């Protein structure tokens, strides 16, 4: 049973560029949440997707956008990258059947913006 997978594992970009991160949820899960974790901090909620729509959003600017596909996988897009966007980006999946309570996290994508 495959867990949550994310790609790529590492990424280096320069300021002003755009980046797309990808996530495949755990088998049987229909909900994907994205988190940003800066070094030495706890994860910060970006947004949550289910039924192919953004359902709730954290305190992040519109430069952060996402998408969920019919197979429940998801993308996180960040435009006009800033140095402060350097962080570990975590994807977590959960299921409507489980009331979306327990979230299972992927290994993350480490983004470095130069």
């Amino acid at each position: 049973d495959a867990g949550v997978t994310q790609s790529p594992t590492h990424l280096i970009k320069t300021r002003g560029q755009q980046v797309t991160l990808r996530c495949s949820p755990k088998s049987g899960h229909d909900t994907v949440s994205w988190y940003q974790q800066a070094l030495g901090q706890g994860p910060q909620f970006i947004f949550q997707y289910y039924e192919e729509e953004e359902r709730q959003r954290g305190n992040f600017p519109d430069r952060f956008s996402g998408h969920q596909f019919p197979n429940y996988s998801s993308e996180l897009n960040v435009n006009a990258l800033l140095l402060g966007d350097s962080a570990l980006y975590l994807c977590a999946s959960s299921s409507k059947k489980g009331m979306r309570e327990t979230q299972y996290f992927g290994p993350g994508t480490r983004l470095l913006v130069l």
Partner: protein
Amino acid sequence: SQQGEEDPQALSIQEGENATMNCSYKTSINNLQWYRQNSGRGLVHLILIRSNEREKHSGRLRVTLDTSKKSSSLLITASRAADTASYFCATAYRPIQGAQKLVFGQGTRLTINP
């Protein structure tokens, strides 16, 4: 801010001793969860305690929840070197029906010395 606060920020103990970490939060919650993270990698779900529960056990883990004090504690008994990691509490809210948002604290860095 809804963010929980963990105490202590860092804890170093000898193998075999018990480790206790505390978490406080500010608003009403649906449930509270504890996660472990090894060396900046993905988070591993440890245990979930609902707002109407006071204590829960899982193996060497014991979690308590006091909703009147808005606090929780995680006890790891008979610690092992493999328990060395960062531990995060996450409070769960349902801002809208069907969705769940996790708000993480900054974590406790636990080091188990052999």
